[in-house]
């Protein structure tokens, strides 16, 4: 059963895969208890103004309807903005559901109907009469750029730094440069749309105690939010999220179904479930529409001397949601003269929300398309141009990289993709009546680590239990954490259980930013290490212990034994230790990022994306016939789940470049395609040959696992690589996403 190979690095299939594909895995909206009530949310149909009257009489009179909550009869709640804040809250004043009669955006939740069945609640909702007084509003970023202003800084800027100060003299350097490339870029609103709808089942346990099954990317985040707003002791609020059917960032903040379900359960002292419908998934959080402008200048050798990147993004009227959009180019390309600007336009929409590679995937579109343009201006191969400008250190902040094998991504990626077959001349390659284009782009995503705790227990039976409050949003967290814990104690996978997704377990931050392996994996490693130490000490304490006089460094843990490296005959088994200990052995440990050491380095995962497209110019149809992404992200704990993350990111890259957009009718201030039939994401028929390479990258600085996280890097390089391939195929540089017929015909 036990092999000598460590489990880390092995392509182990998801441990919960079978439960998921057989429908056995239970999600937040699937916990049934006797007497469960169902809430249905009513959303505003106007974009701005006030509710002048809300008549719930007819709805309430329907047999089986328990209550209709509105701003008029909601319980009195916490007063201060702080109490509505959460781990991912941007600076500003968080939205409070059912707070007042004010309408701040189209789709704002304004009432909750609670009834004995979902269908009845939904029908009763249609019987609630609401009158509004409307006020003028604006929701169109392009029409309001004159209102752009600097974002207000806040706690969130810790993880999302604002642009660095200008360096040198950009305007002069740009004017003097031998070759110039510039562009204006735009993408519209995008919505997360995980398959699992947002749902919360709140079980009222009596005496102010709640058990909450929540769709979230952070159990403790939801727990603190509920405790603060409803004035409950944190220990009385237990939030559980055993399985999460995709998050992509949408669950990084507690959403309004959580608030409403808890409010109703507390008021009615009964269990209440609130599940949002697909169209309601468009009523909180989205990737903000962003306009970007770039100007890059280079000398005759292709060395970039001047970099300017500015972005104007949408935010709401109540919070300053920001992203890191413009900081990346100088991390990738060491120019001496830089000018980076980032501004916000507050509009009458809900606050934007982190969506897979927030900012990074936006910025790379502009940066990497401009690089492609510059390569054409200089008549240099696009990879060559990137090698000429290869940042050995991060000159944007003057620090070395903890590791950076991007060069290998270019070399190995180009080789496997067949980049050398590319004739650089636009419109020079054809297949049948279609134009063929090759494009490439670089990707970068910062590697972060946050503090977390984990517990490790060796049970009486010699099994290892590890736990953390972290969720598994479908990325493979369960599997990967089990691998890490098993290796630390030298146990086979089957002897290790990882428990997670429960706020009563040791602290973990929200699951996002590709920092879960780094954050929680490190905590698990630390807890495992502490348990090793403890076991070793107990092993030595055994009377006549064969390990007396050995040090921890001189033993290996293998298959339930502690064995001397020098003389494998000298060993103590976990069973021997447990027999004397008469009970389980437990450790809880915190892992803190080594801030002082880490601060001296820039830390990032890199990628190179390669794409082949076919373009039918008569019909304007683009097909991504081949794509490959080479990734350098440190130690890959599980190549199978990691590959799936990269492939998922690449599919999303195709979506972003060619398919996906939330359409707004600006006259109404409303999103028009709030369903999966008309919100187009790629279907299988859109996906063809796709490949992933992980290049070897050793990183002894980043964390003890040497692993950088791969949740987001897969999406970053794809969209510009596609746009560049379309340019190569057609000679048309299209900077507006998604790229539609309109621009290609």
């Amino acid at each position, binding site marked *: 059963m036990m092999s000598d190979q460590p489990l880390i690095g092995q392509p182990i299939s998801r441990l919960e895969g079978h439960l998921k594909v057989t429908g056995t895995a239970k999600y937040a909206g699937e916990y049934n208890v006797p007497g469960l009530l169902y809430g249905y949310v009513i959303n505003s149909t106007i974009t701005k103004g006030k509710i002048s009257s809300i008549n719930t009489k007819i709805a309430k009179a329907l047999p089986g309807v328990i209550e209709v909550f509105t701003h008029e009869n909601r319980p009195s709640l916490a007063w201060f903005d702080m109490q509505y804040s959460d781990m991912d809250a941007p600076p500003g004043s968080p939205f409070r559901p059912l707070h007042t009669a004010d309408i701040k955006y189209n789709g704002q939740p304004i009432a909750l109907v609670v009834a004995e069945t979902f269908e009845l609640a939904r029908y009763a909702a249609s019987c609630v009469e609401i009158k509004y007084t409307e006020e003028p509003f604006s929701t169109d970023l392009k029409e309001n750029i004159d209102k752009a202003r600097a974002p207000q800084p806040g706690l969130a800027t810790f993880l999302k730094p604002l642009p660095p100060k200008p360096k040198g003299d950009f305007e002069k350097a740009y004017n003097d440069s031998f070759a110039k490339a510039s562009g204006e870029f735009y993408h519209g609103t995008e919505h997360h749309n995980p398959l699992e709808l947002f749902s919360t089942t709140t079980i009222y346990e009596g005496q102010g105690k709640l058990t909450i099954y929540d769709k979230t990317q952070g159990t403790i985040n939801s727990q603190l939010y509920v405790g603060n707003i409803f004035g409950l002791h944190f220990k009385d609020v237990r939030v559980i999220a055993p399985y999460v059917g995709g998050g992509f960032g949408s669950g990084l903040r507690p959403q309004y179904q959580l608030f409403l379900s808890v409010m109703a359960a507390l008021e009615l002292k009964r269990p209440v479930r609130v599940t949002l419908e697909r169209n309601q998934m468009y009523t909180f959080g989205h990737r903000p529409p962003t306009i970007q402008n770039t100007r890059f200048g280079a000398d005759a050798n292709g060395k970039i001397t001047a970099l300017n990147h500015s972005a104007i993004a949408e935010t709401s009227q109540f919070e300053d949601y920001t992203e890191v959009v413009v900081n990346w180019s100088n991390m990738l390309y060491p120019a001496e003269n830089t000018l980076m600007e980032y501004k916000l336009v507050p509009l009458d929409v809900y606050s934007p929300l982190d969506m897979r590679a927030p900012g990074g995937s936006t910025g790379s579109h502009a940066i990497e398309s401009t690089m492609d343009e510059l390569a054409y201006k200089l008549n240099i191969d696009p990879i060559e141009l990137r090698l000429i400008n290869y940042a050995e250190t991060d000159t944007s902040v003057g620090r070395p990289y903890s590791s950076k094998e991007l060069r290998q991504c270019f070399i190995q990626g180009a080789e496997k993709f067949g980049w050398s077959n590319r004739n650089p001349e636009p419109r020079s390659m054809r297949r049948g009546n279609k134009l063929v284009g090759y494009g490439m782009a670089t990707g970068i995503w910062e590697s972060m680590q946050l503090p977390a705790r984990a517990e490790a227990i060796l049970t009486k039976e010699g099994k290892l239990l590890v736990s953390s409050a972290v969720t598994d949003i479908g990325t493979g967290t369960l599997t990967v954490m089990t691998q890490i814990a098993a290796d630390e104690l030298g146990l086979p996978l089957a002897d290790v259980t990882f428990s997670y997704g429960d706020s009563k377990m040791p602290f973990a931050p929200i699951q996002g930013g590709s920092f879960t392996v780094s954050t929680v994996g490190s905590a698990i490693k630390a807890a495992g290490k502490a348990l090793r130490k403890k076991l070793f000490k107990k092993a030595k304490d055994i009377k006549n212990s064969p390990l007396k006089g050995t040090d921890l460094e001189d033993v290996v843990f293998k298959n339930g034994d502690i064995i001397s490296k020098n003389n494998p005959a000298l060993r103590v088994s976990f069973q021997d230790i447990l027999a004397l200990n008469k009970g389980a052995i437990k450790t809880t440990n915190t892992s803190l990022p080594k801030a002082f050491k880490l601060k001296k380095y820039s830390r990032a995962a890199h990628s190179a994306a390669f794409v082949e497209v076919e373009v039918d110019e008569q019909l304007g149809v683009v097909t991504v016939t081949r794509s490959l992404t080479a990734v350098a992200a440190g130690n890959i704990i599980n190549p199978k789940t990691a590959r799936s993350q990269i492939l998922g990111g690449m599919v999303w890259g195709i979506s972003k470049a060619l398919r996906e957009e939330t359409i707004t009718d600006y006259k109404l201030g409303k999103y028009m*395609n709030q369903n999966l039939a008309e919100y187009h994401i790629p279907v299988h028929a859109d996906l063809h040959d796709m490949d992933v390479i992980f290049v070897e990258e050793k990183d002894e600085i980043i964390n003890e696992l040497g692993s950088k996280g791969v949740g987001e890097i897969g999406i970053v390089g794809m969209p510009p690589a596609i746009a560049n391939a379309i340019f190569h195929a057609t000679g048309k540089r299209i900077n507006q996403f998604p790229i539609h017929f309109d621009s290609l015909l």
Partner: protein
Amino acid sequence: MNQFQYVRPAETSGAIKSVALDANAHFLAGGTNLVDLMKMGIVTPERLVDINNLPLKKIENIQGHLRIGALVTNTQVAENKFVKENFPLLSMAINAGASPQLRNMATTGGNLLQRTRCPYFFDTTMPCNKRVPGSGCGALEGYNRMHAIFGASDKCIAVNPSDMNVALTALNAFVHVSGPKAARTIPFADFHRLPGDHPEQDTTLQKNELITSIDIPTAPFSKNVHYLKVRDRSSYAFALVSAAVALHIENNTIKDVRLAMGGVAHKPWRLTATETFLKGKTVSEDTFKQAAQIAMEGAKAYEHNKFKLKLAPNTLIQALKTASGLTV
């Protein structure tokens, strides 16, 4: 969803009687369109007459006519051997629509009557003359990427979303209906309407009339046919523009031709003038380009669907070339 009565009669006459009992009664076939509309409060029936037990499930060959019962599923039609051999255009069009799961449920009669996908129609909080006559048209000056370039009115610029209908109009089909009055037969071209002042009426079907079957007359279109659908993704999206082309070619001369387009009008858009132009001509790309010009006469675009003025002729040319073997 409101409360409603549900009945499932076994006889056609019983179904018609039952539906006439209530002013607000609807037939239910595959339910893939009607149930969605009910969930969104766009249709609020008092009574649903489920017709799935009616004996309308046969594909027959009657004296040179192909007869398809109203309850034959889209999949059954598309996969039928006789259809594939004699009317491949119909198979191609059906298979270009929706997804396998939907086609397994969707019926021939239901497909004929599916409502538009205009987003203003699909949301009860928006103005829409088709849903609420007199409430205005949100699409006219709103988001109108999907919308009509032919035959629209200032009351409505929605399009018929069906792929199957485009092939059926090209194939000169007939629709058989039974109702409280005498049974009648409607030529396909007269079945769907242009919006005019009454966009709330999609078709000329009268109240309480039941589609029982459609007939397709024998025609020499087993070989040089093509259905080309252009949409925002490779599958599972409605047509922005589609073209159904059926040619009868002898010695490189077009002996007979039928052409229709989808995604461009309130009804499947038959191109009779273009057909007349092509009849007797020799197959060539130039001829097809001229034909496309004729086809586009009278086209009018709105803010977001100007691309259709280019896409529509290109789609037609491409479909003609493929059907005639000029390109594969």
